[in-house]
């Protein structure tokens, strides 16, 4: 068990993550719900299309990632190093097409 994550991942943080994911579905215009799951599952996302995606915190200590995204029934979970990666993983699992990678304009000095 990753004690640090276990300590810092208070229930209120998980609730905030679920609220955030719920807002994220609205942002993506995806009809669906976000509910709590049994530990270590932080959130269960049910899309109106029938897709179900589970978000977990890793259980093993010192893992180089913070989140796992898994389509229900799949043996494979996608590890994500940050919340930004988590959103990318969920988009992939739900088949959501959104924006592209951030692009920084060139400046005169490096042009």
């Amino acid at each position, binding site marked *: 068990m990753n004690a640090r994550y276990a300590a810092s991942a208070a229930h209120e943080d998980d609730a905030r993550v679920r609220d955030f994911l719920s807002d994220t579905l609205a942002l993506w215009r995806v009809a669906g719900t976000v509910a709590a799951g049994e530990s270590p599952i932080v959130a269960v996302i049910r899309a109106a299309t029938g897709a179900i995606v589970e978000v977990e915190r890793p259980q093993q200590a010192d893992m180089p990632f913070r989140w796992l995204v898994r389509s229900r029934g799949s043996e494979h979970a996608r590890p994500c190093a940050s919340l930004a990666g988590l959103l990318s993983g969920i988009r992939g699992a739900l088949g959501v097409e959104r924006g*592209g990678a951030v692009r920084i304009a060139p*400046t005169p000095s490096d042009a």
Partner: protein
Amino acid sequence: MIPVAVITGFLGSGKTTLLARLLRDPAMCRTAVIINEFGAVGLDHELLRTSDESFVRLSNGCLCCNVRSDLVLTLGDLAVRRAAGTVPQFERAVVETTGLADPAPILHALMTDRDLADAYALDGVVTTVDAVTGLATLQQHEVSRRQAAVADRIVLTKTDLPDAQAAATAARLAALNPGAPVLAAVHGAVAPAALFDSGIYDVHGKHPDVHAWLAHEAVAAASGDARHHHDDDITSFCILRHEPLRAVTLALFLSALAENCGTDLLRMKGIVHVAEQPDRPAVIHGVQHVYHAPVWLDEWPSGDRRTRMVFIGRNMRESWVRNLLDLLDAEVADESARRMPPGDAA
């Protein structure tokens, strides 16, 4: 650096009238004008009289759709000819879009082309809105709302006509884009100084007026005003933070915005207190997923060292942006603590 301003506005909103009037002003005498006309036979350029040859017409389609490369090539060519002395030494460029153009792709082209970056800097966006039909146009045409939403300055035209709804239109525009001043113009009469040099990029070596450029107080006031929560799907809001942001948090934040908001993030600008550079605020500015490289100011423009970020977006919730930033910040802080050697934890 040559500032490039974009004049946009819906069909018939008075762009050409405004531009024609501006070009008669002596302050605009060294201006290169690029007009994009939609259709095989352009007319707008016939309505303009310029004093030199720094005038180009693009008529093979809508600038936002299929001639972005033409715009880039044209600006690049003008810069080369200017350097060679074969066109006058223009000090400013103005691009007039078609009335149907979404300005965002045009801004992307101006912001991201490497060849242009040495010669030009995006100055700002001026959007014309017709006081007679503007309300209905804003209601019916999303592109019109997008044109208003990305503006740095809005010019309300035809306010002298009997059917003008100037106050109602101005209120609607203030709801769409609270940070953009709305200037009334009769027959295009607006002083150039009121419209241009609104950008944050130091094209004239002057100290940028970050406060006026960001206009975060107007946005914050508007977002708390019940009148601005209407049926429109375009919203604006301001995020304030007292605590500095780590650079990696900022990078993750901008990346997540780009990837998850897509074209719904119409415009974002801000002044950021970056933890690693506490005495030099970073000015950031993005249109959809494209951002200017941060401009690091030499010092804070005032005693206010809070991070202030203004967002204008479609179908975007302030709570989502706020939670994204808070959660990322907490993650980065946790990760930093986790990687810290045990002895340094205290």
